[in-house]
Structures are given as C-alpha cells and as structure tokens.
C-alpha cells in the first residue's frame, strides 16, 4: 500500500483514513506493507512520519510493515509560508479563490518529490512479496503504476480527493495529468463517495463500471458527552482553511448570524493558505472579536474543540467525503454540511445546505442555536448514525475488491 501521510503526523483526512482502513484490514487478516515518504531533512514536519515504525510493536498493526522513503513530501502549504495580506490579494486577483493561490497548494518541488517517491517505490516493490498494489491519491499514483508494470501485479487506486476538489476550475494541469494517468492505468478505482465517483467519470472520462464506492469510517473513541445549555454558543469550523473548504462562506454566514443573535462565538480551527486572509476578512466585517482562530489542532485538542461546540459547520466547496463531519457527530455535535460533500449523500441526521447559500447557512445555524429540540435530535440521532460508518465495513469491501481484481488478473 502506498500512502503519503499517517497519524500522528497528518494534515487532513487522508492520514486518518489510511490509519483507520489499514487497522481494520489488518484485523481482517490482510497483510500490508505500507510505503510512506519521509524526509531526512530536519526542517520538514513530515520526516517524523518515520516514527510510524513504532506501530510495528503494537498488536493492532501486527500485519502491517512500514517502509519509508526519503523524500520530503509535504502536500499542503501552511499560512506561514505564504505572504500577502487579504487586502492586497483581494485587490490584485479580485477574488481569493483564484487559481494563483491554488497553484501554491503544494511545495514548489512537489513533482520532483513524486518522481523520487516513484523511483524508490520501484526498488521496494522488487524486494517485497505482495499480490496487489493499493495507492492513495495522486502523489502515489505514478509509483503504483510503474511498480505494477515492473512486477506485473495489479493495481488499485484509491481516490480520496481530486484536483477539482482542491482547486475548483483552476486545476494544476500536471497534477490532473497524473491523476488521469493513474485512474486509466489502474485495474480498479476506489472512490470515497458517489460524489467523487461522478467527478471521476465526468472530469477524467473513466467508465463508471471501473469505480467502486467505499465510504470511510470513523473511529469510536467511546466518549459520550452531555449537551449542556450554555449562555454563549460556540460554532465550530474544523478543517484546513483553504479554498476547497469554503472558509469565506463560514465567515459570511457568521456575520449574518451575528446580525440576529449576539451570544455566539465562532471558532475556526485549522490552518491553510487562506488563514491570514480570513482573519483580516473577519476584522473587516467587524466581527473579528467573535471569530477565534486556533491554527492546526491535533489529538486531544481536536477532541476538546468538539466538546465545546454547539454546532459543527463544514461549508466545503467540494468535499470528496468529510470524515471530520462524522467525527463531530460521534462527539454528539449537531452538524451542518454543504451538499457538495460525499457524506451529505448518505446522512439523514445532518443539516445540509449549498455552500454558496450563505443566507440559508446562517438560517440553519441560528435554528440549531435557538431551538433546543433540534439540537437534541441532531445530536442524538447523529451520534447513532455516525456509528454505522465503521472501518470494518470499509475494509471488508476493500477485501472484496482485492479478490475480484486478483480473480481478473
């Protein structure tokens, strides 16, 4: 299995997904060699991924071996690397969703790193004994395809997100080409939702017959929380602050909510290339004192954020799945998610809204904060429903796919 991030060092949902899926697969007796990039360069967050080898001792991962490759693969850029202020950007490029920003999602030499990963993965492929190659997202697609060619083993590519999700219409052509190449060459494609499956068929011209939809799961941390009636309500945004996640719509909706009620605070937990701009935007709207930015949260802090929240909002412009929404539900937090997300297609006990419909978004936020029965029902039924998304189910489906692919190969 080829991946590019693994807990505890993650920047988004992909690492969480790889963790949950491999753990469940391993429990079902599938042997996995997990190949990860890891930079030897000390200045990279991601080199710490090396410590993933510590999992080898753990019983739960007894069927998994980790191999790491020395390449500084750092998929996203944080606000610290990004200069420019909200105002100057807004003036120069007119909109803060423009392509000029999306081009910078990735470190500058990312394509080089992908190449390096491919070279090294080929070497590993020759020394390892395996039946099938399973690659997570585009950075590992070239490695998967060339290893498959080299060894004659079948390959499965797992699409957790596409370039269209990350960058809207202003796609990076090189990345699109790699995604397309991987999807067409692979023996089978796994998509995290029908929403993503549709993007793959319509934007990458892949036959729908080749794609299986496997929903993600969510880890049960067993915590139960009682909703108390607080004076000041807290609305939580938790995710990277980038174009894809729609943080600007959240801020706009917050402004509208504050027109109607005063006892609300908004927390934006996460980091990304739009963080600074959002801080300035909130200040510009005159609601800077009501929106709190926490930067990237990890582990216990994520948990605490959920515990504080009266409502979780995921206003994504395009969200292939949205594990964070399920995590919020698991923590008894009512959720409001955009219809442009994979989870929205199956969830009943969630409020849904089109990401651009700021009015409706604010309307629903207010309703949750204002009407206790709504909050109670979303919270209780939501927790129950989130419990049906189990990694065991996802893993069983993946195993089934492996079987079919091997039977055809």
């Amino acid at each position: 299995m080829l991946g590019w991030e693994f807990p505890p060092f993650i920047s988004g949902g992909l690492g969480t997904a790889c963790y949950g899926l491999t753990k469940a697969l391993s429990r079902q007796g599938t042997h996995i060699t997990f190949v990860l990039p890891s930079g030897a360069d000390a200045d990279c967050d991601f080199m710490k991924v090396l410590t993933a080898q510590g999992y080898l001792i753990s019983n739960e991962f007894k069927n998994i071996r980790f191999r790491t490759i020395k390449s500084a693969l750092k998929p996203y850029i944080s606000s610290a690397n990004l200069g420019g202020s909200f105002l100057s950007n807004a003036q120069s490029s007119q909109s803060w969703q423009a392509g000029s920003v999306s081009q910078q999602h990735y470190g500058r030499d990312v394509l080089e790193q992908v190449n390096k990963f491919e070279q090294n993965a080929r070497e590993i492929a020759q020394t390892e004994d395996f039946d099938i190659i399973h690659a997570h997202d585009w950075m590992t697609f070239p490695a998967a395809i060339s290893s498959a060619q080299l060894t004659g083993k079948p390959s499965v590519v797992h699409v957790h997100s596409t370039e269209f999700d990350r960058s809207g219409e202003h796609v990076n052509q090189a990345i699109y080409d790699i995604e397309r190449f991987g999807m067409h060459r692979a023996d089978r494609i796994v998509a995290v939702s029908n929403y993503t499956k549709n993007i793959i068929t319509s934007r990458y011209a892949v036959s729908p017959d080749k794609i299986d939809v496997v929903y993600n799961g969510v880890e049960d941390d067993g915590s139960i929380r009682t909703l108390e009636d607080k004076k000041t309500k807290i609305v939580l945004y938790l995710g990277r602050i980038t174009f894809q996640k729609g943080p600007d719509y959240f801020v706009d909706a917050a402004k509208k909510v504050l027109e109607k009620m005063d006892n609300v605070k908004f927390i934006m937990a996460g980091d990304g290339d739009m963080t600074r701009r959002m801080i300035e935007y909130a200040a510009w709207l005159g609601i800077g004192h009501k929106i709190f930015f926490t930067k990237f949260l990890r582990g216990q802090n994520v948990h605490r954020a959920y515990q504080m929240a009266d409502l979780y909002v995921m206003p994504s412009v395009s969200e292939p799945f949205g594990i964070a929404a399920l995590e919020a539900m698991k923590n008894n937090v009512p959720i409001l998610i955009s219809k442009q997300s994979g989870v929205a297609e199956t969830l009943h006990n969630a409020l849904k809204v089109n990401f651009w419909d700021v009015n409706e978004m604010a309307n629903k936020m207010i309703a949750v904060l204002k009407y206790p029965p709504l909050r109670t029902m979303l919270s209780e039924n939501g927790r129950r429903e989130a419990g049906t998304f189990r990694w065991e189910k996802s893993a069983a489906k993946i195993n089934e796919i492996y079987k079919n692919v091997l039977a055809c190969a």
Partner: protein
Amino acid sequence: MSSVCFYFQVHQPFRLRNYTIFDNGTNYYDDFKNAQICRKVADKCYLPANRLMLELIKKYNGKFRISYSITGVILEQLEKYAPDALDTFKQLADTGCVEFLAETYYHTLSSLYSHNEFTAQVDLHIAAIQKYFSQTPRIFRNTELVYNNQIAELIESMGRFDAIIAEGADHILGYKSPNFVYQPLRCKNLKLLLKNYRLSDDIAFRFSNQGWADWPLTAPKFAQWVDAINGCGYTVNLFMDYETFGEHQWESTGIFNFLRHLPEEILKHPDNNFKTPSEVVKAFPASETLDIPYTVSWADIERDLSAWLGNPMQHNALTEIYKLEDSIKSAADDALIADWRKLQTSDHFYYMCTKWFSDGDVHKYFNPYDSPYDSYINFMNVMDNLNTRCSDILSLKKMTSGRPQKKTSTKLIRRPLRKNMEKSFATGLQ
C-alpha cells in the same frame, strides 16, 4: 345483510414557502407549489374520480352512495386553483346520493390541545359545507381519525352530530369486529363507526403492490370478500384518502376500472347495498359500548399519534403553536388568526416525522422538504414571524388605547435624528 359505506378524505394543506429567519414577509405560503399540486391532483384524481362517481350514481339510480370529508383548506385552494373540480363536487352534492362529513376546517390536531379552538374550527367547517354544498353534516370525523373517549364526549356535548368515525385498529378492538355500529363510552346518543382497515387498505395501499399475494385485486374478488362478511356484521366501512384514485394508485394500475366495476359486483348479491354513514347510523343499532382511553389514528402501522407527535421537534412545534392561542385571539386580527390556524394543519407536523423506514414512503408523498429537520426549521421561522406580528399588534393596541398624543411627538423627534445620522454616515463613507 351487509352495507358498503364509502368515505373519502379530500385534503391538501397550504404548504409553507421557504422562510428563513431573515425573511419578514407575511405571505407564508408557497403559492406556486400549492397551485401546481392542487392542479395536478385535480387533473389526476378529483376530476376523473368525480366524473366516474357521477356516472356510477346515475347508472345505479341512487343505489350507489358515497360520502366525503373535504377540509376547508382544500376548498379554499380548489376555489382559487381548480374551480372546475369544485364544480364537480357540487354536482355530486346535488345528486342526493352523496353525504358530506364534518371535521376541523384547517385539518388540525386541535382536539388534543384546545377544546375552544377545536369547536371553533368545527363550526367554521360546517359553515363552509353549508355554503358550498347546502348540507349540514351530521357525522363527525376528526383529523386523521384521531380518536379517544374524551373526543367522543366532546362531540356528543356539541349536540349536532349522530356519529363519530374512528380507526378500527386491532389494539382497540381485540377480537371485536369493525363491521358493527358501536357506542363511545359515556355517550348516550352518539354512535361510533369504525374503519375496516384491512379491506380499506387493500384498495388504498395494496392495490398495485405486485408482491402482495392477492395481486391483482379485481372487483369480483373484492366483492367476494365483502359478501363473506354477510351474517357477521352490518357494514363494511371503507375509508380512505380520495387521492388513492389516480395519485397514490396511478390510473395505469387500473384503479378507476376497479371502481367502475365494483358497484355492479357488490350489488350482484341481493343482500348487499351501499349506504352513507348517516344511513348506516339510522339503519343499525349500536351493538356495544367501546372504551378507547388511548388515542388512536389511521396513520402508519402504529395507528397512533407518533406520525405527528413522535419526536421532540414535533412536540415542541405543536406546543408552541397552541401556546399562542390567547395572544392571537386577543389581537383579534382576521388575517393573523387565519395564518395561525393554517399553521396548525397537521401536515406541517407530519413532515417533521423521523420514522424513516416502511412508512417513509407515504410521508414522502407531496412532502415539500428534503428532511424533517428542514421542515421544523422552516415552520419555526414562520411561527416566529407570526409571533412578532401578534405582539406588534398587541403593543400597538396598548399604545392607541393609552396615550395617543405622546406617540406623535416621539415620531417628530425621531425622524430628523435618523436623517442626520444617515447624512453623517454618508459623509463618513466619502
């Protein structure tokens, strides 16, 4: 001897438009959607079914008899959006073979919340039936056949009804048969008619179900089942939504043909006939007193209130709307009262139902919302506006009855102030 007693429910609510907390218009209704649905139902169901009924009544020369319960809210909509369908109902009334029943004008659950409001709405409905069909109803059917001992007593105390209609649910009847006439507990004159839900649902729900062992249901087969009741019952009460014909069961299922041939097959047996509820009540004595302490209805498989009062949102919305009664009535504004009553229509609470599975299909029919949560939010927003309107009227009343002179003086001071502020704001922007 067995009589077939048909009663059809005719109702469509005033659906609410998408109303956010930021809206403050006083038209709460989705006029476009309501007109569209009303027109569609009229074309697919009311018009063809009414024409068929007229034809059958003529053909059997008074032997084919039926009854309707038409809510006030659908009458209002028919008048606006489908007057041709309303005309055919009037023609049916003119035949003398059709009886109209009484219910709450706004198709509400007021019987459970406010007896004053309940009787007011029943009076309104009777007046509407008199106006449109020149009949005075003598039989009462409550919204969705919601029934318990208290409701029956209340109806008897009104003194204008001969009988009340309820669901013949198994858990209230036990071994007893719905095919007799009963008397509600503690009632002296009022009789009780029970729906034969098996035979009714055979037509209303199972008619086109190909997985059903008795599919396809033909008129001779159904008549045979009715014949079988001979000797162990007086009447077969077939109560159902009128939309069964053409909407719930599409024309292509053969439902109209089934109906066309049914009278012939039923009347083949010399002991059979058709009767309206009033005729049933007159013809047969009450055979027993029936004690129904728990509320029953004709909805879903539970036959209880869970379709409207099954979750906290529904409880909350219903309690809140009836809490407004006193202030709305003291505001004494006709438009306000009408809006408040239209918000009581049971359908609004039905849309908030979260029982998904087997019953979910029926709930989805004509449901304008994607999710029960959305319907709750929308409803609460409208009610919030209604509440504000009400308090505005009330405070205005207080002001005008108090010191009218002071009011004009504050206005004089306020106006220039605001102008000045706007000016300074505008210059500030420049």
